[in-house]
């Protein structure tokens, strides 16, 4: 009896959840074209990819890509601010047509949304004083590297560094960067995003020593929006080819679109 009731509750909850989740709303390319606007979801709290400018308008790498995409589709962009946790629900419920929201391409996400070819990427690497010769992880022997505690780069540096390398763990990227800029350490494990901001501040005092890992990001559409996805892919291919993405990447991250994004499948 007890078991039956519990079973019933579980089934009811399951049915309710399924009902709430609903079928994914596929975006219709023809509908977008006839409406004349494409609704683009993007993050506004993820500099330099998505930010709010001083006028309160969405700006950043993703915003520029969204505008270029809309132009390619021949429609007006309507940017809808989304947040990290709710961006996929926004897409699946049809409140936005596409996500240009720095969505990293992962297997779990690919099961729920359809990704375009990569349009951006975040890589983590070891950076350091331009004068310092560090060819690979072995060269870290006897060196001191700053990282943000428990970050991806902490894990990666800890894994590849020889035993006699000193890893200084700071509470966040900002402190690790401080340690690098003030000369307390000569090497840092950081993302290209963080380093782009440093580059903007101090020029070419630091350069990349070697890569640790990378993650590419795709434009996402709801499953079943095949015509739209095809068009988005054509846009990404063209924008990669004609230098549009290089230009936008240069503007926001201080370097052309990295090769690991261009070469990624």
């Amino acid at each position: 009896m007890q078991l039956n009731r519990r079973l019933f509750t579980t089934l009811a909850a399951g049915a309710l959840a399924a009902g709430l989740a609903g079928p994914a709303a596929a975006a219709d390319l023809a509908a977008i074209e006839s409406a004349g606007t494409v609704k683009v979801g993007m993050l506004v709290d993820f500099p330099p990819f998505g930010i709010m400018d001083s006028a309160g308008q969405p700006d950043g790498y993703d915003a520029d890509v969204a505008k270029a995409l809309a132009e390619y589709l021949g429609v007006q962009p309507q940017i809808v601010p989304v947040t990290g946790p709710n961006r996929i629900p926004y897409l699946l419920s049809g409140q936005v047509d596409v996500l240009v929201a720095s969505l990293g391409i992962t297997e779990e996400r690919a099961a729920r949304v359809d990704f375009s070819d990569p349009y951006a990427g975040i890589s983590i690497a070891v950076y350091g004083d331009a004068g310092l010769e560090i060819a690979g992880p072995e060269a870290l022997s006897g060196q001191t590297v700053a990282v943000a505690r428990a970050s991806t780069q902490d894990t990666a540096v800890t894994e590849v560094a020889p035993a006699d390398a000193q890893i200084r763990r700071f509470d966040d990227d900002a402190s690790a960067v401080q340690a690098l800029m003030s000369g307390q350490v000569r090497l840092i494990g950081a993302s290209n995003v963080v380093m782009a901001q440093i580059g903007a501040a101090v020029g070419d005092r630091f350069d990349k020593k070697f890569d640790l890992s990378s993650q590419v990001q795709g434009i996402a559409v709801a499953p079943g929006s095949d015509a739209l996805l095809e068009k988005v892919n054509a846009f990404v291919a063209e924008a990669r080819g004609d230098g549009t993405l290089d230009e936008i990447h240069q503007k926001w991250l201080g370097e052309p679109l990295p090769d690991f994004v261009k070469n990624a499948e």
Partner: protein
Amino acid sequence: MYQFNFQPVIQNLDLLLFGAWLTVRLSLMAMLFGLVVSVLGAVAKTSGIRPLRWLVDAYVEVIRNTPFLVQIFFIFFGLPAVGISMSPNTAALVALVVNVGAYGTEIIRAGIESIPRGQIEAGRALGLNPVQIFRYVVVKPALRNIYPSLTSQFIYLMLTSSVVSVISANDLASAGADLNARTFASFEIYLVLTVLYFLLALGFSTLFAAIRRVFFTYPAGR
């Protein structure tokens, strides 16, 4: 119900104990140097030499009216700009000494001022020289008068030293944070950290009580 798992803590207990050892060394050294700075500061403040007093006043006010976190960031991240670069552990020690020195100066100054002039005159009448008067008639009774506030400031210093993990020093709190980042057993790790800090504080209290019994229980019966 949360499943306790002390395995990560037990396996890495050596890391935590090593961190605790650094916290003990850091605190002891900061107390020692801090006491020297405090006595010198208090003497300068009560000396009547005006520029010296102003200098110490400025030091005490700046340190007592700014957060320790800002002070340690300034020493570790700021000073390299003028060519003074220290390792994280040295910077932590310097920051703690500078910090406790300011509070200690005020505490010891209060102690010195609590000595009645008559007592110093009595010392003179006994034929003690100025150094002897300062040592036996002023500083020692002064320290006895403010001993409880000074030692509680020292224990507070030991607890404050947990902040030094922000500049990547390897103290107990830092060891705990590293372990937490690797194992995510936050509850267990911080529970053990709490116990360790409590034991350290208890240890220091016992040490201070012993010092008090040896040096400050005169005349007999006090």
